[in-house]
């Protein structure tokens, strides 16, 4: 009896095994790659998250897209211009079809604006200046803004266009609503216009995209790969191992310490470019007494000399060299190269000088230093915990005892972000979503008033910068605007509002048969991938 069952099982197994390992038909070009996170949804409005947006933009397309150099270029719109200060007019591309064959028209643009700005969508903020989207004819739409908005085209690069008909058919005219208990159809299905189509998806494990043979861009821009096979691998060492063992053609993100190992392996190639994200340290500058400090009755960080002492006690070049293995760009500004408003001339750090720092502390009345709590994430930025430990050690040399609390992101952000803002000294990173310095200034430096300065955790406040921000927001002349941005960035720098540390470097690693386009916004576009 037992043997018979066993034999049956074996037979069944052999059959299934045969079916599974049966050889594939035609030789297709398959590109296998991995990232530390998964695109949590196929719905392009589900979350304002770099990886989700860049992954989904292989299937969906915006009106205006960015090319391999991060410059704006026509996407589903062929032209755009301001017809008056509050109106942007877009001419749409003709002959484009969604993956299900439905033609693309102005109705889809109006619908997408509506879907992106309603609850469930996470992408309402890039459209916050837009009052209305008006269909002029089948291939012309007007975006009416509340006031003059010079940077609307930049904001539109993250708004992918969805099909009105498809969304209505599948009852997904609103993005996923977490309070309902149903999965939205768009969470695991797609119907974009883009160069790739969804073939298979196991959330959090594997997602397979195939080339869209009917893509409108094919004749100018042929797609080289037939299939892109994405796996999520959260553990950095495992990810690197899978690349080294030949199971993958490309991985990102790559930990700095493993870069030289990969670069030194035959047939491997490392790609890098400066990232837009700036890593910096912030101080609580508003509470009369710090929450976590040995100084009682006053807040030492209200004194500019103390902030400067912290700044000059930190040897950023050592951090960049040793912790980041030179994959970092030390910075004096809150924005980095590639962000509109950045200027190399301003990017001069104050020198590392522990002796001067000690003197400043003594002048401020703390000759023996003091202790202060130090909040840090340990799974958010490249080597975040190691950077914080290095900072702690450097501060120790001028008598500051930083009590480091390194936590996972959910706990860290829950502590230091709104509404609690419970920190005295912390590390944070910021990427301006608009690629424009005003975004960083408004979120990080402007006085916290419930609307602006949301991530100004330390509640820094400088009326001069607030006034400049207001002017920049409505200035349409690029030259004047850049000049105002420079003024605001310089003020921030010289007042030691923050201690900017560095911009990370985006590092991707591939097998050397792969060619691709790497950009500082960490957007990985499959359409640029070529395989020998």
């Amino acid at each position, binding site marked *: 009896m037992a043997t018979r069952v066993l034999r049956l099982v074996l037979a069944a197994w052999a059959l299934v095994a045969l079916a599974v390992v049966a050889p594939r038909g035609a030789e297709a070009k398959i590109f296998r790659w991995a990232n530390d996170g998964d695109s949590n949804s196929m719905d392009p409005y589900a979350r304002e998250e770099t990886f989700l947006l860049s992954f989904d933009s292989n299937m969906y397309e915006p009106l205006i897209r960015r090319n391999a150099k991060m410059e704006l270029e026509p996407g589903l719109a062929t032209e755009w211009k301001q017809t008056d200060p509050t109106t942007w007019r877009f001419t749409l591309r003709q002959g484009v079809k969604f993956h299900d064959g439905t033609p693309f028209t102005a109705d889809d643009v109006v619908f997408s604006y509506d879907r992106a700005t309603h609850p469930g969508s996470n992408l309402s903020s890039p459209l916050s200046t837009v009052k209305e989207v008006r269909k002029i004819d089948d291939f012309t739409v007007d975006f009416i803004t509340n006031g003059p908005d010079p940077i609307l085209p930049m904001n539109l690069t993250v708004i992918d266009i969805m099909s009105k008909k498809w969304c209505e058919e599948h009852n997904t005219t609103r993005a996923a609503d977490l309070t309902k208990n149903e999965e939205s159809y768009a969470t695991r299905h797609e119907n974009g216009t883009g160069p790739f189509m969804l073939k298979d998806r196991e959330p959090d494990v594997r997602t397979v995209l195939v080339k869209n043979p009917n893509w409108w861009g094919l004749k100018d821009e042929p797609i080289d790969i037939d299939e892109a096979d994405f796996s999520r691998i959260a553990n950095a060492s495992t990810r690197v191992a899978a690349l080294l063992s030949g199971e993958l053609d490309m991985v990102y993100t790559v930990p700095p*310490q493993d870069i030289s*190992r990969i670069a030194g392996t035959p047939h491997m190639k490392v790609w890098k470019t400066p990232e837009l994200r700036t890593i910096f340290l912030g101080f609580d500058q508003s509470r009369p007494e710090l*929450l976590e400090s040995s100084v009682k009755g006053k807040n030492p960080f209200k004194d500019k000399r103390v902030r400067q002492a912290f700044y000059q006690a930190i040897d950023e070049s050592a951090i960049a060299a040793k912790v980041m293995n030179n994959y970092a760009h030390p910075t004096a500004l809150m924005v980095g190269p590639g962000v509109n408003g950045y200027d190399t001339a301003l990017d001069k750090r104050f020198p590392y000088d522990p002796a001067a720092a000690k003197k400043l502390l003594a002048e401020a009345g703390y000759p023996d230093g003091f202790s202060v709590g130090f909040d840090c994430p*340990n799974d958010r930025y490249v080597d975040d915990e190691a950077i914080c430990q290095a900072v702690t*050690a450097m501060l*120790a*040399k001028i008598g500051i005892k930083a009590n*480091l609390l390194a936590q*996972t992101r959910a706990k860290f952000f829950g502590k230091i972000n709104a509404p609690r803002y419970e920190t005295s000294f912390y590390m944070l990173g910021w990427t301006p979503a608009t690629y424009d310095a005003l975004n960083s200034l408004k979120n990080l430096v402007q006085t916290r008033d419930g609307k602006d300065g949301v991530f100004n955790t330390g509640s820094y406040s400088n009326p001069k910068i607030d006034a400049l921000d207001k002017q920049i927001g409505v200035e349409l002349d690029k030259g004047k605007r850049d000049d105002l941005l420079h003024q605001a960035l310089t003020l921030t720098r010289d007042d030691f509002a923050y201690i900017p540390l560095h911009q990370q470097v985006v590092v991707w690693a591939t097998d050397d048969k792969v060619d691709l386009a790497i950009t500082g916004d960490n957007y990985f576009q499959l359409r640029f991938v070529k395989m020998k």
Partner: protein
Amino acid sequence: MADLVSPIPAASPPANPPTPPGRARRFFDSDILYSFRRSPVTVAAAVVAALIIFGALAAPLVAPHNPYDLASVSLMDATDPPAWLDGGNWDYPLGTDNLGRDVLSTMLYGTRLSLTVGVSAVMAAMLLGVALGLVAGWRGGFTETIIMRVADVQLSFPAILIALLIDGAARGILPRDVQAEIAVYVLIVAIASSHWVYFARTVRGSVLVERNKEYIQAARVIGVRPWRIVVGHLLPNVIGPVLVLATINLAVAIVTEATLSFLGVGLPPTEPSLGTLIRVGNDYLMSGDWWISIFPGIWLALLILSVNLLGDWLRDAFNPKLR
């Protein structure tokens, strides 16, 4: 069943035969020492354990650097290889970690922390678990039901969650100033409270078997008080598996501590324990800086190995049934 035990008058004279004089003494003089000398493995284990524990206790005296004195750590010396390799130097015999701390010194200091946390947590878990297991197995009925169902609840929560709860509660209740100082205790309580169940369930299982054996029945009949039966007769007979569990759990406790530090519970990363050093060094294995995790790994392995071998010997030597 409780009826069997309770009605026995408290006044009845103790029935145990008087213990032969100097029994413990004779033990130490002959059997124990003899069995110790006879086993070279045990002697070796004892020497290794003694060395490691000595290194931990005397870390401030024997370690070449103080890795917790951050002012003395230089980032520019980070990831230096061991002294005998190219680029190494004898300032840092076993190399440095990713922040420039001397690996050897960090190991010695880290062992102090790991041992403190590991041993305290396992001891606490063992005491609590054995006591509850004995009570549950012996009393049975409602008491047993309550204890064992609480154990079920407890088992459902991985150690990391228990630790988050205890840590969160401690942070909520205690003033911010003392939080840094109590971090170690939070860790011990957290780890102990996720380990006691293993002891409790194991002991209860053994008690269920033992309590019906003749020697226990006999003790009851002649009127030995329940707690004396439990402690004097039952305990020695169920302790074998407990010792196996305890010595093995020491390794688990030490490693759990490293996992918890990642969640921001317990000790700050500026004071790495042995486990934390291995966890951090783990990220550098792929890049070729193997010494950050491998030396502490070997150190931990040696410690666990010797403790377990000593535990084996101890159990055999003191087991009344094997004498």
